């Protein structure tokens, strides 16, 4: 499995993928965090879904991680695309047969690839955290936000907890992408299905029938990063997401193990 992971990391660190992903994540994080701080005194919505986050709120311990966690959904979408494409391209490029000749254990291939992509996802979360925290400190004085509470023990503890939650959200979206990649065996179909479902269909469904929000996978994945919401608890989202992903992953793992590799 470690050999597969090393091989997959070699593919993941190719400059075109690595640099473009880092740029996208950094740009999104910078944009969202800057909006939060630059518009903190405007009285207009500067947070998630038009929520107003005042300088007083940002001066609390959560001010350090607010910018970091609001980008979690897009970080998740990025992970979904990377996981789906890295998995499905093995079919479209025909490289899966090379992998299986060199490592006949299909479960080891799956586990190795998944581990490498999790490492990649954690690196993305780390970059997100560094950019968001850096910008938060940089713009705090401009937004009349005091940072004293950020560096207290509770602030640091919140940072650790948020990092873990954003990481779980990113991995959950990525796992969803990998499931779609194995199912569709085409990067375009897998990414299109994943993005359309999470970005468009879930938003429409959640808005039209609010009771569905509790059951929608993408919304629950993101709810983990937010630490839960008024309507859906953190633990519910954690359990439901784990349930969805374990069932989904088990099905595609069985398919992957049994399907003939004929392309």
């Amino acid at each position: 499995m470690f050999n597969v992971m090393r091989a997959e990391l070699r593919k993941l660190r190719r400059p075109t993928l690595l640099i473009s992903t880092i740029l996208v994540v950094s740009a999104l994080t910078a944009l969202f965090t800057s909006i939060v701080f630059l518009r903190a005194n405007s009285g207009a919505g500067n947070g998630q879904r038009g929520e107003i986050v005042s300088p007083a709120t940002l001066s609390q311990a959560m001010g350090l991680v607010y910018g970091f966690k609001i980008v979690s959904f897009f970080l998740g979408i990025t992970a979904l695309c990377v996981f789906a494409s890295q998995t499905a391209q093995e079919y479209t490029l025909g490289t899966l047969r090379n992998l299986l000749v060199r490592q006949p254990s299909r479960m080891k291939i799956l586990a190795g690839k998944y581990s490498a992509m999790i490492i990649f996802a954690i690196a993305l979360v780390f970059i997100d955290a560094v950019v968001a925290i850096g910008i938060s400190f940089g713009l705090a004085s401009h937004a009349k936000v005091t940072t004293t509470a950020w560096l207290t023990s509770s602030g640091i503890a919140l940072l650790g907890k948020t990092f873990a939650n954003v990481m779980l959200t990113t991995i959950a979206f990525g796992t969803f992408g990998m499931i779609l990649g194995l199912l569709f065996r085409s990067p375009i179909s897998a990414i299109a299905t994943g993005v359309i479902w999470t970005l468009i269909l879930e938003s429409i469904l959640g808005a039209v029938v609010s009771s569905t929000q509790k059951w929608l996978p993408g919304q629950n994945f993101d709810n983990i990063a937010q630490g839960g919401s008024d309507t859906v608890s953190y633990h519910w989202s954690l359990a439901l997401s784990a349930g969805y992903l374990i069932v989904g992953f088990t099905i595609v793992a069985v398919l992957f193990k049994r399907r003939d590799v004929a392309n």
Partner: protein
Amino acid sequence: MTTAISVTDLTKVYGERSALSHATFEVPLGTVCGFVGPNGSGKTTTIRMLLGLIQPTGGTGTVLGESIAHPERYLPRVGAMIEGPAFYPALSGAENLKVLASLGGFPQERVGLLLEQVGLGDRGGSKYKTYSLGMKQRLGIAAALLPNPKLLVLDEPTNGLDPSGIQEVRNLIKDLASDGTSVFVSSHLLSELEMIAESLVMLREGKVLFAGRTKDLLAAQTATLIARPEFSVDLNTLAEIATKHGHTAIVEDGAVHISGEADWGAAFNRLAFNAGVTLAALQVTQPTLEETFFEMTGE
């Protein structure tokens, strides 16, 4: 263990269609074995089953003495290129090989050596997507050689190669075989296979038509005697002599083409002389592998 590959009644059925039907053959250890058949005859399906990529519907087989039900036991000693090269376009040739070397746990140092061996030493750093078809093919062969294989399975290794590239692959296969590597090679270039393959497996429509030594296959084919008389007026006389002695004769391009055993040439010469016909030339030709293939497969 005397065979590199041995299969018995190997069968693969897709729905109603039989891709391979009760194939039984052996590839002797340390030899080059050609694997021939028209497109869609089941060659790639067979190779995929030998490499554990698809599951047989029926039958059994061994590769390097291990059952094909456990490919993990023999694949570390097998190099393969199946249905042409397949690599990551955004990675260089060297990086692509390093991915496979990492995967198989092979030393990374082999990558440079293999790139040199297949003539890509100076282009190893270029992205795969910039490679010509011939270069891609060479990289595929390099990837197959990564494990320093005891058995090399090559599916159309000369596709896209220029004549000198084809010659290089032929020499490479010969060198590997002389070092004791067994090579199972599928190719449509039958003249190439005739030069290097000691044994052959021939398929048609999923069935094995022939499996054995190449020279036995060719020796079993009917030779052609081409007799050219001194005077063209004697062509019909020669054809009549051949027909009278139970052979098929065709007059074509100023010569009589007679199907028959190669050693009938001397007798025919005598018969022609007795009939007052002087032969300007008498040539005995054995069918080539290509002609034999067309004859047997009906292509």
